[in-house]
């Protein structure tokens, strides 16, 4: 028996206190999903623990509205980038559209004529209700944010409220994502049989980076930053470590205005030069089409009803937010007379949101001045009352809401997600994008309940088998390599400092023994590994080695690079690894703000997540090229670091008084002390130290072991670079006798590392020139 929406809503309200109490669990869970948002990227959003329940019947009428809006947007785009009839006949005042920076002149004529492929592959509509009647707040067409969030939110909420989810059994979402994948794949130029789809994103740190990579992983598409793509011979190529691979569909998460620095104005690093030329030649399809944002123009929006009748021959199924265009003298005088009751925005999508009633007298006058001088650039909308949804704020409150519904477009077929991203907030301005605490909003998962042709909520394989293909961009490869190196750097510095601390604890006088020889050797090792320098040799460098963010290889610096790198290749790490990376982030923040006497403890706590990360890398990652580069980075760093450590501590024969402690320091810092004791059960002999730390292939910390792994990693990579010339001589001598041989191994490894960089990573930045 199916639950009705009314029952479901009652259940949610009855259980609100229990559901609300799970908010922290929900946040933690999403923290590992949207890890990079949790790691400090902008736009981190709060998911409310209360789902919004929608009756299936209402959902289908909303879906009809969304689909009509989408058909209208396609018709508008076909016209504005084709015959421009709606401007010629002044159905929409041309100056409002022509002044919109999202109206891309080079894209005129680029959109194929109707019937020759869709202008849009995915669209979103923000739909609210006012006194029970649906009202459209906005269309989202250029870059559709939230598609990935909707799925992440559903998965998190379904897991946290597992019993409620089972009981209410809302329509599942995965079937829709399969449709979306089909829509993107089918956007491909017709001559391609097995199209390659990439997600073009501006990169880590930009809005939605985590969401896009999550979505890419779910759909099985590659994430590409602009630098990963290149246009050659009028076609588009993905620069993978195995060579250039053709791309047929670009799912664009970079704004249209930036997507091609050759033909459009925009930063050369945000777009792909020549992209529009590939579209023109029909070797590549961009979804959504470059310039789609013009259909979000607010004057076009204000004329929706007329356009719907003229272009589609249909009556609009829903009203749009009442909007006045200040380029029209009559409307302008209405707006100026009612500024305190209106919300003022620019004509083009995005831009600032000014709430008349919240402006100071001066600000309002200034705004009125701008509107009277250049009215065609502004629209105003009424602050209509919005119907509410229950929100958890320590107790249940009712707040105005708008639902973002998503539609996938495959030719003439549209399919709307049976769910939505609902946003609730204090006022309409916040839902329209106003920023500031007064306009804060929260997100809700939206459950469609009581659908008759119900797709089970628990379907697992609707997306089917995904062919991830083993391609890895050169950029991602380089990032993984450095993530690996920084992981080992961080590990080595903590272990060295800990090893020194332990010796000092055990033998409090060791610092002054043999004229401080042990201490200065230990500090030399610290200086080399962490890259701290400048202090007199007797000073204690350990604090700086841990927490000096200006030192090139200190613990905080290495963690910073490690985390920043990981954020830019989110899709290559599993949810578990993101969980650990989240701990590392917290830990490194604690370390960087720790007082001197707390640094040790803060650093010590990092060892476990670092070890967990290494462990997960070994145990839970497929040995694909991404893993190989991560491992290569680790092995290169560990061999170089171990040799540096040996040379710093044992480059000269130690004074007999401090010799045993010095050997112990070296063994403990290379995590080989226990192994040594188990194997030799004797006093520490320097030759045996060298054997265990350099030669021993069974010791995963030894140099020889690292070199062996480097060879294996290289052999796994495409477009092979041989590691055959790497030679590790067995060292059967005291380390100080063998320093030349140690240096030779070190320089072989660093040379190889440079070869890897040149062979696989060589990235050249582009720039714009003009005559």
């Amino acid at each position, binding site marked *: 028996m199916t639950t009705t929406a009314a029952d479901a809503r009652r259940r949610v309200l009855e259980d609100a206190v229990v559901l609300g109490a799970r908010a922290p669990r929900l946040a933690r869970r999403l923290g590992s999903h949207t890890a990079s948002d949790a790691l400090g990227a902008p736009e981190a959003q709060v998911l409310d623990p209360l789902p919004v329940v929608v009756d299936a019947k209402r959902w289908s009428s909303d879906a009809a509205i969304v689909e009509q809006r989408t058909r209208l947007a396609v018709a508008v785009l076909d016209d504005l980038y084709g015959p421009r009839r709606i401007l010629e006949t002044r159905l929409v005042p041309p100056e409002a559209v*022509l002044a919109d920076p999202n109206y891309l002149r080079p894209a005129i*004529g680029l959109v194929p004529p109707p019937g020759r492929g869709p202008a849009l592959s995915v669209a979103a509509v923000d739909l609210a209700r006012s006194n029970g009647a649906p009202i459209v707040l906005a269309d989202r067409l250029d870059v559709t944010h939230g598609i990935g969030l909707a799925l992440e939110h559903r998965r998190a909420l379904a897991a946290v409220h597992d019993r409620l989810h089972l009981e209410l059994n809302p329509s599942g979402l995965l079937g829709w994502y399969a449709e979306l994948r089909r829509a993107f794949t089918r956007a491909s130029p017709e001559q391609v049989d097995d199209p390659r789809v990439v997600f073009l994103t501006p990169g880590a740190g930009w809005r939605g980076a985590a969401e896009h990579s999550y979505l890419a992983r779910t759909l099985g598409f590659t994430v590409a930053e602009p630098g990963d793509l*290149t*246009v*050659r*011979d009028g076609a588009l190529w993905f620069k993978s470590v195995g060579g250039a691979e053709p791309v047929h569909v670009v799912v664009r998460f970079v704004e249209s205005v930036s997507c091609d620095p050759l*033909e459009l*104005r925009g930063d050369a690093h945000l777009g792909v030069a020549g992209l529009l030329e590939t579209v023109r030649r029909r070797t590549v399809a961009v979804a959504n089409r470059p310039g789609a944002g013009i259909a979000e123009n607010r004057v076009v929006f204000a004329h929706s009803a007329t356009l719907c009748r003229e272009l589609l021959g249909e009556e609009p199924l829903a009203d749009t937010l009442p909007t006045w265009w200040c380029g029209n003298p009559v409307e302008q005088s209405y707006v100026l007379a009612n500024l305190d009751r209106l919300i003022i925005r620019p004509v083009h999508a995005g831009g600032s949101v000014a709430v008349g009633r919240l402006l100071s007298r001066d600000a309002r006058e200034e705004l009125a001045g701008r509107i009277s001088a250049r009215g065609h650039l502004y629209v105003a909308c009424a602050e209509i009352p919005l119907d509410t949804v229950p929100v958890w704020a320590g107790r249940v409150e009712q707040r105005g809401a708008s639902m973002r519904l998503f539609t996938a477009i495959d030719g003439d077929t549209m399919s709307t997600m049976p769910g939505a991203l609902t946003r609730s907030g204090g006022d309409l301005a916040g839902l329209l994008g106003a920023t500031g605490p007064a306009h804060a909003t929260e997100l809700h998962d939206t459950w469609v309940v009581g659908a008759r042709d119900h797709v089970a909520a628990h379907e697992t394989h609707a997306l089917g088998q995904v062919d991830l293909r083993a391609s890895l961009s050169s950029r991602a490869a380089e990032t993984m390599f450095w993530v690996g190196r920084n992981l080992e750097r961080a590990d080595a510095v903590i272990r060295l400092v800990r090893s020194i601390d332990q010796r000092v604890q055990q033998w409090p006088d060791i610092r002054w023994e043999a004229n401080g020889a042990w201490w200065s050797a230990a500090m030399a090792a610290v200086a080399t590994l962490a890259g701290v320098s400048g202090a007199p040799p007797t000073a204690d460098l350990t604090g700086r080695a841990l927490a000096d963010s200006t030192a090139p290889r200190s613990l905080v610096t290495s963690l910073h690079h490690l985390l920043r790198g990981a954020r830019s290749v989110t899709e290559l790490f599993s949810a578990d690894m993101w969980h650990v990376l989240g701990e590392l982030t917290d830990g490194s923040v604690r370390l960087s703000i720790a007082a001197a006497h707390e640094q040790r403890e803060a650093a010590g706590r990092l060892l476990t997540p670092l070890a967990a990360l290494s462990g997960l890398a070994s145990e839970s990652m497929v040995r694909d090229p991404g893993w190989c580069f991560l491992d290569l980075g680790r092995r290169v760093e560990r061999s170089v670091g171990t040799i540096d450590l040996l040379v710093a501590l044992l480059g000269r024969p130690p004074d007999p008084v401090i010799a045993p402690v010095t050997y112990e320091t070296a063994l403990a810092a290379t995590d080989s002390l226990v192994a040594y004791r188990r194997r030799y059960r004797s006093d520490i002999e320097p030759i045996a130290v060298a054997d265990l730390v350099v030669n021993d292939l069974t010791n995963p910390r030894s140099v020889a072991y690292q070199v062996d792994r480097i060879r294996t990693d290289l052999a796994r990579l495409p477009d092979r670079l041989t590691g055959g010339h790497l030679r590790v001589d067995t060292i059967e001598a005291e380390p100080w006798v063998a320093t030349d041989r140690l240096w030779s191994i070190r320089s072989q490894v660093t040379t190889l590392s440079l070869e890897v960089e040149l062979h696989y990573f060589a990235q050249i930045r582009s720039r714009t*020139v*003009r005559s």
Partner: protein
Amino acid sequence: MTAFTVHHVTRYRYEQPATLCHNEAHLCMRSTPDQTVDESWVIIDPAPDDRSERIDLYGNWVTYFSLQSPHEQLQVAATSRVRRTPTTRHESEWLPWEAARDAPRGVNAWDLTIESPHVPLLSELHRLTDGIFTPGRPLAEAVAELCRRIYDEFAYDPTATSVSTPLSDVLAGRHGVCQDFAHLAIAALRHLGLSARYVSGYLETLPPPGQPKLKGADASHAWASVRTPTGTWLDFDPTNALVAPDTHLTVAWGRDYSDVMPLRGVVMSSGATTQLDVEVDVERVDPSA
């Protein structure tokens, strides 16, 4: 009728070899009612790996090309043979300027009436037209005076501005080059509600004996054009204070410089700097030769 041969050579030298470049050129000349283009072609050295030609929204020729192997320099040479008749004048140019402002127009003309990337409609612009666009004054007469005002009040100074200098700086600094003056005139006219476009082209390098050499003759030149009440266009050159000049040769037109940049490109090179040389040579072809 006068025949001309135009050579326009652009050379880039890169500090470090460029591995890949994509370029777009507006160098092939278009025909106009007063200008017949017999031939216009572009030779690129090294030979491009990819090249295509198309016509843009404004009816100009656009050449796209890319070089995909390392190169230290790039030369783009355009050669054109054109015949120019004296500029046709239209009676509508002598109608009151308000008639042009109030005339119905299509989308393409509307596009030239509002602001564009290099032409912001600054509020100070009215100072350029105050006292000139008086009620009922013939359009051509008012435009001539606007032209003269810019010529008199602004200093021609190739060192003062670059292609990225905003119009507000030109207005405040009272100096600039042909591009700036064209943008200034266009902005002033659009500010009044008139349709105005940016024209890129050439001047004769060495004028006939007895005539002065014009400013901008050694490089590509730029001027402006205003739409008359009947939809014809009246060219004028604020840099040289000329209305309806007879020997200006048109390459392309658009909303402003950004639509018709002679050559622009995106280059992949590890070097930071590019050395640029431009040579323009416009010769009158002796009809007896």
